[in-house]
C-alpha cells in the first residue's frame, strides 16, 4: 500500500529545497565580485539579477512551505532531487542574460553540466566571454563536485532531522565523522587544502610559461577547480591544449586523480594511514583498469601510426585515458581528433574508461571503482564456490578503509546500480543513433554525458537536436545522483497520484 504524501510532507521538502536554492544564489556572489573588481559592469548586473533572483526563489519557498515538521528519511532524497532541478534552473539566469547561448535549453545544459561536473558545453564564443561568467562556470563545477547539499550542510543547516538522507541522496555515503555536518566540513577542509596548493602551483607554472600574471592566477584557480572536481570546463575553447606544457598537464593529472579519490580515503591518508592508498579496493581497481585500458589504447594508437614515438604516444594516449577514467574530461587533443585520428578502436577503449569511472564518494562519475572491484571479487568468489567442496564456506573479503566481508545484500545492490548504469549508457547511445549520428560517436558522447566525463568527439554542438540535448541533460543528472534520488522523486510523484 502506497501512502500518499501529506501536505505537511510537501512542505518539508519545499522548505529544505528552498534553503539549498538559497545556497546557489549565495554562490553567485563570487562571480559578482569578480566582475565588479574587473569592471565588467554588465556582467555584474547579470549576476546581481541572478543572485537576488535565486535568493528570492529560495526565500519564497521557505516562506510558503514553512513548517516545524522535521526532515525524515522519506523526505531527504526527494529534497535533493528537487533542489538539484530547481538549482539548475535558477543557475541559468546569468548564462541566459549573457547572450552567449542559443536557447534556454543550452543554458540549462551548461549549468547541469557544471553542477554534475561533466564538462560538455554549449556556450558559444567562449574565447570572448567575461571573467565573471568564466568564474561562474567554475564555481558551479566546484560546488557541484563538493555537492550542493554538502555546501548547504556546511553553511545553512543547523543539523536537525534526517540530514544524512540529504547527504546520501547526493551520491555520497561515506561518513567521515559521526555527524554528517562535520563530515561535510571535513570534505571542505580537504578540498581547500588542495585548492591552496594546487591553484598556487598551477599559477606559478602559468607565470613561468609566459602568461600574464592576472591570467596566470585566474587560469590557475579555474583549472584547479575544473581538475579537482573532475569537471572538464576550461577557460579557453582550446581546453588544456592552450598551455602547450607537459608540466601543466602533469599537474592537472595529479590534481584530477586526487579529486577522483574517495573523500574517506583522503581523510584516512590525512590522519596518517598512508598505507590505505595501496590497500584500498578502489585504488587497486582504478589502477588495474586504467593500466589495462591504457595499454590497450597504446596498442590501438600505435596501429594508427599518428604518433611517431612512444613518448608522444604515451603523453597523448595516457592523458586522454586518465582524463576519461577519472571522468574529468580535460583534453589535449581536438574533440574531432578522436574521430579523425584515433579511430573507433581507441574510442571504444576510451568509452570503457569513462563508463567505469572513478571512486565513490568523490567528485567523479561512472559506475565507480568500488562497484567494479566488488563485482570482480563477487565473480571470483562464485568461481571459487563452484570448484570447492559443497560443504566449504567461502567468504569474500575486501579492504575499504577497513577490512570487510562482502555479503549478499551489498553484492545485490552493487550489481543493480551497475546494471542501471549500463542500461542508461545503452539508452543514451541509441538516442544518439536515432538522432542520426554514427554509432561509435553516439555511444562516445552519450557515455560521456551519462558518466559525467565530458570528453567530446565533436558530436555535441549548438545545432544538435534539442531532444538529444534533453536526453543528455537527464543522463548527466541521473548519473550524478546515481539514480536513487531521482527514483525517489519519481516514486513520490507516483504516490501523490496513486497513494491512499
Amino acid at each position, binding site marked *: 500500500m502506497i501512502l500518499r504524501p501529506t501536505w505537511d510532507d510537501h512542505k518539508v521538502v519545499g522548505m529544505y529545497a528552498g534553503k539549498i536554492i538559497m545556497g546557489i544564489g549565495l554562490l553567485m556572489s563570487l562571480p559578482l565580485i569578480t566582475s565588479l573588481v574587473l569592471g*565588467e*559592469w*554588465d*556582467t555584474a*548586473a547579470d549576476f*546581481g*539579477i541572478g543572485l*537576488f*533572483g535565486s*535568493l*528570492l526563489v529560495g*526565500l*519564497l519557498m*521557505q*516562506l510558503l512551505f*514553512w513548517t*516545524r515538521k522535521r526532515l525524515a528519511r522519506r523526505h531527504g532524497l526527494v529534497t535533493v532531487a528537487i533542489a538539484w532541478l530547481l538549482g539548475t534552473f535558477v543557475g541559468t539566469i546569468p548564462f541566459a*542574460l549573457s*547572450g*552567449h*547561448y*542559443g536557447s534556454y535549453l543550452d543554458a540549462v545544459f551548461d549549468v547541469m553540466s557544471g553542477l554534475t561536473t561533466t564538462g560538455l558545453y554549449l556556450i*558559444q*564564443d*567562449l*574565447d*570572448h*566571454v*567575461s*571573467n565573471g561568467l568564466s568564474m561562474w562556470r567554475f564555481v558551479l563545477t566546484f560546488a557541484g563536485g563538493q555537492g550542493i547539499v554538502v555546501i548547504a550542510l556546511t553553511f545553512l543547516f543547523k543539523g536537525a532531522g534526517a540530514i544524512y538522507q540529504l547527504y546520501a541522496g547526493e551520491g555520497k555515503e561515506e561518513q567521515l565523522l559521526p555527524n554528517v555536518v562535520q563530515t561535510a566540513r571535513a570534505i571542505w577542509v580537504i578540498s581547500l587544502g588542495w585548492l591552496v596548493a594546487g591553484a598556487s602551483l598551477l599559477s606559478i607554472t602559468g607565470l613561468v*610559461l*609566459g*602568461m*600574464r600574471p592576472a*591570467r596566470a592566477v585566474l587560469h590557475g584557480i579555474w583549472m584547479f577547480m575544473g581538475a579537482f572536481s573532475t569537471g572538464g570546463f576550461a577557460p*579557453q*575553447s*582550446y581546453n588544456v*591544449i*592552450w598551455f*602547450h606544457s*607537459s608540466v601543466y598537464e602533469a599537474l592537472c593529472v595529479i590534481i584530477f586523480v586526487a579529486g577522483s579519490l574517495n573523500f574517506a580515503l583522503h581523510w584516512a591518508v590525512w590522519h596518517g594511514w598512508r598505507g590505505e592508498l595501496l590497500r584500498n579496493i578502489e585504488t587497486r581497481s582504478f589502477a588495474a583498469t586504467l593500466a589495462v585500458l591504457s595499454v590497450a589504447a597504446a596498442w590501438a594508437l600505435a596501429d594508427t601510426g*599518428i*604518433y*611517431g*614515438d612512444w*613518448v*608522444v*604516444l604515451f*603523453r*597523448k594516449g595516457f592523458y586522454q585515458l586518465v582524463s576519461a577514467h577519472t571522468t574529468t574530461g580535460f583534453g*589535449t587533443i*581536438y574533440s*574531432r*581528433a578522436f574521430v*579523425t*585520428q584515433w579511430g573507433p578502436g581507441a574510442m571504444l577503449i576510451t568509452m570503457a574508461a569513462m563508463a567505469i569511472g572513478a571512486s565513490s564518494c568523490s567528485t567523479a562519475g561512472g559506475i565507480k571503482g568500488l562497484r567494479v572491484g566488488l563485482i570482480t571479487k563477487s565473480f571470483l568468489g562464485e568461481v571459487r564456490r563452484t570448484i570447492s567442496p559443497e560443504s566449504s564456506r567461502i567468504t569474500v573479503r575486501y579492504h575499504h578503509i577497513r577490512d570487510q566481508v562482502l555479503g549478499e545484500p551489498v553484492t545485490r545492490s552493487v550489481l543493480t546500480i551497475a546494471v542501471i548504469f549500463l542500461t542508461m549508457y545503452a539508452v543514451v547511445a541509441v538516442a544518439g543513433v536515432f538522432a542520426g549520428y554514427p554509432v561509435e560517436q553516439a555511444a562516445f558522447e552519450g557515455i560521456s554525458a551519462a558518466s559525467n566525463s565530458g570528453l567530446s568527439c565533436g558530436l555535441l*554542438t*549548438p*545545432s544538435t537536436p534539442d531532444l538529444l540535448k534533453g536526453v543528455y541533460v537527464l543522463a548527466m543528472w541521473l548519473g550524478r545522483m546515481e539514480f536513487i534520488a531521482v527514483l525517489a522523486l519519481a516514486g513520490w510523484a507516483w504516490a501523490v497520484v496513486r497513494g491512499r
Partner: protein
Amino acid sequence: MRLRVVLALAFLMAASFLNSTGTAFGDARTASSTELVEHPAEWDGVTVTFEGEAIGEAMVRGGHAWIHVNDDAYARASIEAGAKLAGFNSGMPVYLPAEEAEKIEDFGSHTVQGDLVRVVGVFRAASPEHGGEMLIEGSSLEVVRGGSAIEDPLKPWKVWLAAVLAAACGGVLFALRRLTHAA
C-alpha cells in the same frame, strides 16, 4: 633572343627567391581550422596560410612564442561586438619566432577585438617536437587589420531589475523572520 634569355633568367631568379621565402604564389595553400582538423593527414607537412583573430595572449618561451588564432565566425566581431551566434570557437595554435608574435598589439578577449593576423607556416598533424600536438609551425606573421576595444555597456534595466529583486528579497526575509519568531 638575348632579351628573352634575360627575361627567362630574371623570371627563374624571382621564382626561386620567392620560393625560398615561402611566400610564393601557389606555394602556401590557404586552409581553415575546420579543414585542418577534419583532414589532418592530408595537410600534414603542408605550408599553409592561416588567417584569423589572435586571442588571449602570446606566451613567450625563449626565442619562440605560442599564440592562438581563431578563424571562426567571431574573428572579425565577437558576440559582445554584435555578432550573431554561430557555433563554437575554432582555430589553431601557432608556434612562431617571438619577434613575429610581437607584431600583435591586441589580443581577443571580452573587452577587446583582437588583431586579425595572417600566418604562414607548416601544419603538423602530430608534431613530434611538440608532444604530438596539432599546430602550425609559423615562419611569418602579418597583421591584416588592427584590433579595437569592445563596448559592453551596462544596460539600465538590469540594474533596476536587480534592485527590485533585492528589495523583494528583503521583504520576504522580513516576513520569514516574523513567521519563524512568532512560532
